[in-house]
């Protein structure tokens, strides 16, 4: 049985990735950040033998190190790593720019990916050796179209750069990479067990986004699992199969 570690698994794309890997018979280590949210526990009741919940805050070195140790006690190796956790921060255009909000997305989205690779790589010396990352077209500088300075976009650009450097070193060592743009996904803003049933609508009742989380997860899983003949290239591919520039 193959296994996978997934960050940001509490809800939305991460939760759907967990569900779909379980449905395919994989052993899943789900990185749990929102400890008060019961959605992963509900899923665990369905898959008690193949789903393990791991406390995981990718913004902290020690937390990632501890998560790798915890996974290492249950598995002799990890086949696949999926860094899906994402943080958001401020942007210009909403009055005065608050630059103090710009640090968190960089720390979670870019440095979080580096922490995951660094601390989990000792467990990935054998097996599939596949490193997967949920990025975004929002981080693509050459097609940047937004007119506000966005800390989220900037963090995804930083992530793409960190992946370049990691790819340059690790691909010749036999590791394979997946860089995935999930499309414009409808995301539920649910954080606590006491929250109402998750809604995908904003305060005005509008449905924001184009794809459901389970749709983009369904597009991602085959990309992550299947081998390619061109593993020597780092390519950002979206949920519809289109390649993006950097």
């Amino acid at each position, binding site marked *: 049985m193959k296994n996978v570690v997934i960050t940001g698994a509490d809800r939305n794309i991460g939760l759907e990735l967990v569900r779909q890997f379980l449905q395919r018979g994989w052993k899943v280590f789900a990185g749990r950040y929102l400890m008060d949210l019961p959605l992963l526990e509900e899923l665990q009741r369905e898959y008690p033998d193949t789903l393990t919940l791991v406390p995981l805050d990718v913004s902290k070195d020690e937390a990632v190190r501890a998560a790798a140790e915890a996974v290492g006690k249950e598995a002799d190796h990890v086949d696949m790593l999926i860094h899906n956790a994402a943080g958001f921060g401020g942007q210009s255009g909403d009055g005065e720019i608050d630059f103090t909000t710009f640090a968190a997305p960089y720390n979670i989205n870019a440095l979080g990916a*580096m922490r995951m690779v*660094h601390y989990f*790589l000792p467990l990935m010396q054998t097996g599939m050796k596949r490193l997967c990352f949920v990025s975004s077209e929002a981080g693509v500088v050459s097609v940047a179209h937004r007119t506000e300075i966005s800390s989220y*976009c900037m963090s995804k650009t*930083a992530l793409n*750069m960190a992946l*370049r*450097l990691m790819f340059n070193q690790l691909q010749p060592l036999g590791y394979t990479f997946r860089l995935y743009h999930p499309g414009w996904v409808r995301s539920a803003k649910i954080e606590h067990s006491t929250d109402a049933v998750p809604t995908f609508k904003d305060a005005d009742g509008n449905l924001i986004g184009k794809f459901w989380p389970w749709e983009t997860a369904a597009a991602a899983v085959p990309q992550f699992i299947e081998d390619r003949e061109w593993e020597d290239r780092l390519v950002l591919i979206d949920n519809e199969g289109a390649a993006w520039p*950097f």
Partner: protein
Amino acid sequence: MKKVVMIAGAGDAVGLRLVKDFLKKDYAVIAGLLTGQEGVSLPEGVLSVTLDPLSHQSAKDAAAAVAEKYPGIDMIVVNYDNCPVRENWTILDEPDFEAMKLAYEYNCLGPLRAIDAFRPLLDKGEGKRICCVTSADSSNNAARDIANYPSHVSKAPLNMAINQLFNGMRPDGYTFRMYCKDVSAGPAKAGEYAAEYFTRNRSNEPESYKHSDENRLVLRDWMNIEIPW
């Protein structure tokens, strides 16, 4: 009346080179020095202000000090780089995440803080030009490295932010320059061609008439070679 340029990060070798080169071009020069650089020797007639790349408030205070002498400025040049020495660790070694956080605050958010603080003065000036000194380390497409993470990963997101600024401000008449200094040339020569590039009109040059550099944002090095994003 002289054009006015604000140079944030004027106290290092590249910055001092910029100060001298802009004076030769008959600009009125304001030198933005980092805390601790107050003793740097500047040419006569250069107004100096202190600003900290890590503090938005210090950039605003510097702008307020400049506003007492100049009602507007024509150009801002930001020259911040806290990664002058290559970091050779890779993802297989022990990454220095604290150094990476500091590099982002300094190299990426530092320029944005300065540009934001001086925007009101730029709005009142006629030149309306925003310039950054960066390096080819910032290019996602050209990255062939396996190390030097703090420099690469802190400078790439600045490229994104300046692209977004360009999208928002170009319609208001602003023009932009992103200049890759020659890090291999040594400190004294790394900024040799920067002032020339920053002051040149790129709107109708023979090599760029098909894709005017003023209506798209480009990253160019000291040899005027375009670096992909």
